[in-house]
């Protein structure tokens, strides 16, 4: 990646995060009086004034905005309105659970999707191909909240073999991980298949076959690296789906991660926690886009000299 392109992307990333921070500030100020939500409308004016001062709500708006930006940069997202702890602490406590569930389901989905996609492409139009593609359509059409409920009904309530809620043992991750991972397995299988089919028809594949390269080597040495660029792109794009999916799946399975924390915070209008999560996800997504661009240049030499990459 050229220096100029890198700088443009970096500026865009910072701008994105700044816009989101500003948006949360505006939303915070337009959403009504948080103090009233905290102490109720029966509280005495003295109590309200006390809390206004405590949360800095008595100062002019621009001053609040500047100090708000400063706080965000320092990683201070304010106190959770419900239990007076710093919002960032609550998020930090929930984050390992979300990462564990997310990694297991995403990597699991990716592996299953890769295997299924490659097998389907190599056996194009066979009954195996049709079976795998049928599974893929099923996988990404099943809404995760519905799949989760079906799994709970079958494995936790009917056969009673797996726990349905909580995160106490290693067994607890199985059902949420299957729920979250099935969607990705379906999407990746379909995408890997079509990408592989495209690559398998290229002339260099005929050349590799003509020079006598064995089947296995042709697939993994000639075809797969060339299919990698679009596959990595879609993997990067689907990380957003992972965030959205974990909000639902964590709620369905009572998994104590960031997603469930977010839903709880919205229900109780605890905006400090909401904004901490929002900004954290924004930073993560911007960094991920960066990483995906960087990985391109690692695996595809053509990208290093290309004048304009990305979108």
């Amino acid at each position, binding site marked *: 990646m050229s220096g100029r392109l890198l700088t443009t992307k970096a500026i865009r990333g910072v701008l994105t995060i700044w816009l989101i921070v500003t948006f949360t500030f505006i939303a915070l100020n337009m959403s009504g009086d948080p103090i009233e939500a905290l102490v109720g409308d029966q509280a005495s004016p003295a109590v309200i004034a006390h809390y206004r001062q405590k949360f800095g709500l008595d100062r002019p708006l621009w001053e609040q905005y500047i100090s708000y930006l400063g706080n965000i940069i320092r990683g201070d997202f304010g106190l959770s309105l419900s239990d007076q702890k710093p919002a960032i602490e609550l998020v930090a406590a929930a984050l390992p659970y979300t990462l564990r569930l997310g990694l297991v389901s995403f990597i699991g989905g990716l592996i299953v999707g890769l295997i299924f996609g490659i097998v389907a492409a190599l056996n194009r139009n066979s009954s195996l191909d049709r079976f795998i593609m049928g599974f893929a*359509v099923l996988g990404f059409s099943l*809404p995760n909240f519905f799949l989760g*409920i079906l799994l709970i009904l079958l494995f936790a309530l009917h056969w009673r073999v797996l726990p349905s809620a909580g995160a106490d043992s290693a067994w607890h991750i199985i059902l949420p991980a299957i729920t979250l991972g099935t969607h990705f397995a379906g999407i990746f299988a379909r995408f890997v298949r*079509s990408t592989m*089919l495209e690559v398998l028809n290229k002339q260099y594949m005929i050349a590799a076959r003509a020079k006598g390269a064995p089947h296995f080597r042709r697939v993994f040495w000639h075809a797969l690296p060339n299919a990698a660029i679009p596959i990595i792109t879609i993997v990067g794009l689907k990380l957003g789906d992972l965030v959205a999916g974990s*909000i639902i799946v964590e709620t369905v399975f009572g998994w104590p991660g960031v997603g469930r924390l977010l839903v709880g915070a919205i229900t109780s209008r605890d*905006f400090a926690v909401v904004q901490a999560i929002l900004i954290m*996800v924004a930073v993560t997504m*911007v960094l991920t886009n960066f990483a995906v661009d960087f990985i391109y240049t690692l695996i595809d030499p053509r990208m290093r000299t290309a004048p304009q990459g990305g979108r």
Partner: protein
Amino acid sequence: MSSALLWRKKTIGHPVKAEKRYPIIVVLTMAFLLAIFVVFCLADVIAPYDYRTQSLRQRLMPPVFLGGTNAHLLGTDELGRDILSRLLYAIRFSILVALGGTTIGALIGTILGFLAAHFRGFVEELIMMLADVQASLPFMLIALALIAAFGGSFVLFILIMGFYGWEVFARLTRGVVISAKEQGYATAMIALGAPPLYVYTRHILPNILSVLVVQFTLNFPQVILLETSLSFLGLGIRPPLTSLGQMLGAGRAYLTTAWWIAVLPGMVIFLTTMSISILGDWIRDQLDPTLRGTGS
């Protein structure tokens, strides 16, 4: 490679059997989507009961295929409301929200795309940057943040759904309008002195409409999923209104005693999104025979 495989490879390009024009699965999905559309139009006519009518004497009755009565074909829920009627109305509400949301998103995006293509320069940069910002965050999160800030009234919820996907329409419109402006018919109209708005609405818009319609059908099922997800979390459509996601979410509490309350609306959501997806694939394959069978 064995001779059998070689033979199969040869037949790929030249199918021996004549291709069926309407595969059975496509006919089924069309029939299902047609039924959904009829329910959307006629929910109040078909439904045997009002979706709000409670009857505490007849709570949690099973569907007729699990030993229920003909009075409530799909059973009743925890307040004794007829599930079939609720399901029909839920389909209507879910489709209504998805239609409203997708339309608003398409309008906002198309207008912004036209503005970007017309003014270029700073306006274009600004609109495209906003599109990038929206695309860089999962929309579910943006929607949740908006709901957290502004609460969850029905009108506001449809507006929030309308924010979904505008950036795709904006990018698409900007691209096709810029290239359309270079084409003879548009430059001719501009040279003849037609005002820009006239050229855009009467000449360029009809030419790019097909692209926008395709994007509309792609966005539509995603908005259905978004609505059902948020309603499932209890943050979208709220009682006394109902939607497929709201029914499913409310039915979660009764999984042990009355699983059909949650499973029936779930099946409808699943079959709808799957039907749209299968039908969309099939239509695209028909329009572009070079892609046939690649499923790309």
